[in-house]
């Protein structure tokens, strides 16, 4: 039983073919660069650029639409405030905050939609991240899916026996019990998964079948993304620098 968020469907694109190590560093630097953006126009430009980046990575539409829907729920209060708030009561800050949130969402989405989790983990590992956080990342990804899978089974079993949620004491009690069952069953299953991994010689270290290799195009992509982000930030701060200059 699998759902659309079990594993991000990844289509071949220039972003998906990018060596994950260069990609992580490039996205990190790009995100840091964009924190220096101040003006609405530059932030809007950065959002547009991030949207183009995301689309050029050929993300799976089903996967992306779910995330956009979630993000929209987050952005809804900003839009609602802008519509009802009186003039000059901090709308500018709200807009910048919303643009910044959208920017980071788009950047994160373009990374996640084009990079497999195990490649990210392998890249983090080769970039010097200690094994424990890397392992935690992979295990969390795996167990989140596992709990979700277990929840779907429990829900199906409840529905098949005529359960429909109504705001009654009995329904709340049943839901509470189902949640407890979920964690017990997920824990049981997690133990079986761990046993299966141990039986295949797993000793806590993940190894990839395709060790990352740097190509010229990886470096070029790195400079492209970091360069664009840095240029935006530099352009945005140009007036401040001009004031400093003699």
């Amino acid at each position, binding site marked *: 039983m*699998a759902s659309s968020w*079990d594993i991000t469907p990844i289509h071949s694109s220039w972003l998906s073919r990018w060596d994950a190590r260069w990609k992580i560093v490039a996205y990190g630097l790009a995100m840091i660069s964009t924190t220096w953006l101040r003006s609405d126009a530059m932030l809007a430009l950065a959002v547009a650029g991030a949207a183009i980046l995301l689309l050029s990575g050929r993300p799976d539409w089903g996967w992306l639409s779910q995330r956009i829907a979630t993000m929209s729920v987050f952005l809804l209060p900003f839009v609602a405030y802008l519509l009802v708030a009186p003039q000059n009561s901090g709308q500018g800050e709200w807009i910048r905050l919303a643009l910044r949130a959208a920017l980071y969402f788009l950047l994160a989405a373009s990374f996640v939609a084009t990079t497999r989790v195990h490649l990210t983990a392998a890249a983090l590992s080769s970039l010097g991240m200690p094994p424990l956080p890397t392992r935690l990342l992979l295990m969390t990804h795996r167990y989140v899916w596992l709990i979700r899978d277990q929840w779907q089974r429990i829900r199906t079993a409840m529905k098949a026996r005529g359960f429909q949620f109504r705001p009654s004491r009995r329904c709340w009690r049943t839901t509470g019990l189902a949640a407890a069952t979920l964690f017990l069953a997920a824990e049981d299953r997690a133990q079986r998964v761990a046993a299966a991994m141990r039986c295949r*010689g797993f*000793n806590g270290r993940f190894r*990839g079948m395709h060790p990352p290799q740097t190509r010229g195009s990886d470096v070029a992509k790195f400079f492209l993304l970091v360069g664009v982000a840095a240029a935006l930030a530099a352009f945005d701060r140009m007036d401040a620098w001009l004031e400093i200059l003699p």
Partner: protein
Amino acid sequence: MIQVTGLSFAYSAGSPVLRDVSLSILSGESVGLIGPNGAGKTTLLLCLAGVLPVAPGRILVGQLDPAIPSDRTRLPQRLGMIFQNSDDQLIHPTVEEDVAFGPLNLGWPEVVVRQSVAEAIQRVGLQGSEQRTPWHLSGGEKRRAALAGVLAMQPEIMLLDEPSMFLDPRARKELIRLLNDLPGTKLIAGHDLDLVLQTCRRTLLLDGGKIIADGPCEDILRRADLLEPRGLEVPFRLRLSPDRVHDSRA
């Protein structure tokens, strides 16, 4: 190859699941492990695989004692286990990566891993599915992917827990053919007595954590007096052809 002497096991705060089990399996033997639900079949396999803690000196798998940590680390090189539910065993996002998981853990060189993975995938007939997501495969394909993951490690001993579970008749037939083609020692646990009959020469009957019977497969599986009180039935093909002997088994 496998030597078990006076093995007892109990889960914490529970009654014993295995009681003084002793058995010996020779190299190259194909043995069925049958018994009713709760007989201790899976527990025995997990003890052999070193997943459950046992007292030292009770189990020897090819000279390795799963109770000794250094031996337990080396155990996956010699022994592979197929779990009841293939979903528990498939952990990587592509079939190829999943099959490579074991060989990579053994520290094999990349070239050898690639070759071993390709051979294992071909052996189970999953060519062309290398880049598919294991969780989106059918039940039969998942079982084959799980089998490939173990075969790629080239173990001398294979433990199979309910291998025909969730399989339709065609996939089950294919699995029987695969099992009969596999070299090495096999211990196949399950209730599918027909599968055991077609793949094993020897059978162990486990009930209440004890070995009740041990002998040639057909002799044990013919005995309704042994099977029926334990909720098992004489396989249909033995009832139909009492003198039938099959030679496709290891």
